[in-house]
């Protein structure tokens, strides 16, 4: 009899979502208390689960007490436990900021907003631990539906962006479902471990290859891997800031994690990477091309949130490429980059949300003199930006380091990926120094220092922002031990 702790991590936000919806109608203040309470509980439990998994090994939790192939099984391996902790920490930090923005952007609809918000978090947590291929589809749809609604709650063009996302997201989910159907037709099972055990006998089959392709394409659409990225920039930049602080850091990273799950838990690295070397090379090259194109598009943007959205698309290329380089170093880099990128994106989007909260929009042109107006916000933004560029003491440097080393290790065919990574870092530097130039050197100069009154974002937004910036520095400082004790054990088995 194992403990129920992993499930409480998922159940706490889910149950609270319903209670928030009920209680929020009568007393607005309860929304903040309940959501924060549930997420603090989830974070602590997730920490305990991670510790338990690291000491005692993978937990197999059978929901309803039914043994694995018959019932639904949750598999909490070290990587899944790490994702649990990452998701709950990021969600907790984002919630502080979302509470403040939601009060400003969606007055009177906070209880509805936070109902969907908590269910989204619960769905993401569920995705991290599920060991059942069909259950993964259901959870994928939960995260999608809540995201569609949360984006459509924005003003102006937001519903149109949301509709495009609905069409693309449904294509992705349906492709995934088709892939699961093909696997079910071939193996008669839905449990990932069970499929993993049956499949090796039929690896030569065309049907297995088709299933693999459709599963991958489905997840790629969800994570906006470059040729399939069309929906992301609009959806993330037009969503209310209270939404984008949660979905921008988490959705794409969880999808990358799902890709790792599909490759390692359903199929095997041998099949995915080495059976057809040409496919592996093609995907890494596509990732490299994706990084370059997305970085180029980011350069053309004049809006902060839109620019950050294109950077997210580029970062997806880093991680997909890192996974498909298929060596231990690159895999370490990819997993470390999932953690780092979630925190970096969180930091940058929290800063963007604070800026929108004060300025009303996120146009680069209106950010003049922002260093004098909001010094702490911009300081944290700068740390996030440095991390995104990959400046040494910050977290971003180390994951890029591992990725580049992995690229070099993979052999001469991967030089495109390494080059793309370096060029994209350079482009990021240009991007962020342009913002720093606008916000630090332009505006306010001719009127002296007192022309712009100091007007910091409210404490609800500032504290998580500063915390995430400190976390980036701390991860950077402690990168060595972190990789050794957390990332290396979390590398998927068979590697």
């Amino acid at each position: 009899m194992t403990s129920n702790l992993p499930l409480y991590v998922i159940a706490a936000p889910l149950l609270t979502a319903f209670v928030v919806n009920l209680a929020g109608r009568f007393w607005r203040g309860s929304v903040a208390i309940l959501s924060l309470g549930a997420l603090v509980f989830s974070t602590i439990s997730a920490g305990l689960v991670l510790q338990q998994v690291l000491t005692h090994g993978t937990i197999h939790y059978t929901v309803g007490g039914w043994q694995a192939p018959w019932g639904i099984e949750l598999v909490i391996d070290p990587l899944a436990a790490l994702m649990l902790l990452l998701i709950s920490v990021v969600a907790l930090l984002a919630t502080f900021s979302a509470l403040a923005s939601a009060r400003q952007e969606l007055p009177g609809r906070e209880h509805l907003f936070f109902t969907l918000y908590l269910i989204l978090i619960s769905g993401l947590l569920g995705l991290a631990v599920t060991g059942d291929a069909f259950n993964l589809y259901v959870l994928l749809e939960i995260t999608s539906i809540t995201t569609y609604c949360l984006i459509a709650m924005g003003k102006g063009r937001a519903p149109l962006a949301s509709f495009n996302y609905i069409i693309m997201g449904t294509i992705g989910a349906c492709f995934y479902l088709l892939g699961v159907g093909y696997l079910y037709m071939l193996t008669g099972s839905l449990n990932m471990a069970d499929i993993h055990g049956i499949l090796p006998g039929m690896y030569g089959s065309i049907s297995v290859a088709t299933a693999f392709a459709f599963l991958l394409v489905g997840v790629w659409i969800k994570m906006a891997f470059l040729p399939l990225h069309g929906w992301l920039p609009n959806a993330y930049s037009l969503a209310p800031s209270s939404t984008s602080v949660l979905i921008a850091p988490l959705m794409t990273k969880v999808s990358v994690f799902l890709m790792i799950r599909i490759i390692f838990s359903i199929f095997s690295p041998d099949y995915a990477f080495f059976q057809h070397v040409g496919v592996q090379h093609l995907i890494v090259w596509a990732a490299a091309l994706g990084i370059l194109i997305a970085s180029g598009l980011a350069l053309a943007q004049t809006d902060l949130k839109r620019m950050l959205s294109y950077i997210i698309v580029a970062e997806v290329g880093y991680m997909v490429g890192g996974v498909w380089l298929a060596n231990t170093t690159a895999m370490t880099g990819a997993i470390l980059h999932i953690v780092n990128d979630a925190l970096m994106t969180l930091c940058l989007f929290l800063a963007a949300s604070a800026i929108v909260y004060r300025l009303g929009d996120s146009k680069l042109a209106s950010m003049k003199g922002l260093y004098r107006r909001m010094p702490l916000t911009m300081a944290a933004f700068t740390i996030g930006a440095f991390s995104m560029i990959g400046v040494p003491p910050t977290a971003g440097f180390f994951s890029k380091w591992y990725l580049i080393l992995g690229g070099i290790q993979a052999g001469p065919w991967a030089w495109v990926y390494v080059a793309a990574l370096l060029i994209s870092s350079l482009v990021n530097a240009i991007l962020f120094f342009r913002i720093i130039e606008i916000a630090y050197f332009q505006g306010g100069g001719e009127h002296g220092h007192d022309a712009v009154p100091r007007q910091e974002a409210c404490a609800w937004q500032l504290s998580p922002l500063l915390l995430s910036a400190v976390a980036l520095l701390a991860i950077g400082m402690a990168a060595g031990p972190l990789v050794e004790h957390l990332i290396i054990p979390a590398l998927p088995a068979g590697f």
Partner: protein
Amino acid sequence: MKTLALLATILTGAILLYGTADFAPWGDPESPPNRHLSRYYIEQAVKETHVPNLVTAVLGDYRGYDTMFELVVIYCAGMGVVAVLRRSDS
């Protein structure tokens, strides 16, 4: 644009049809999906849950976790529609 869409559609359909090559023919009682899990459900579900309707037994118990999230999905849709459309919600 339309030609591109048509090509993509035909390509997807062709891959999907080509991928059915190794499938058992329709209605084969010995095909993998009819052999592996379903045999256990048909033989054991009534003994283990006392529910003669196998679909209900599997839906409510063996895969109850799915069903829970299924209810959450439709709940989300309801609340989401209220959040997106309704202006006069008190």
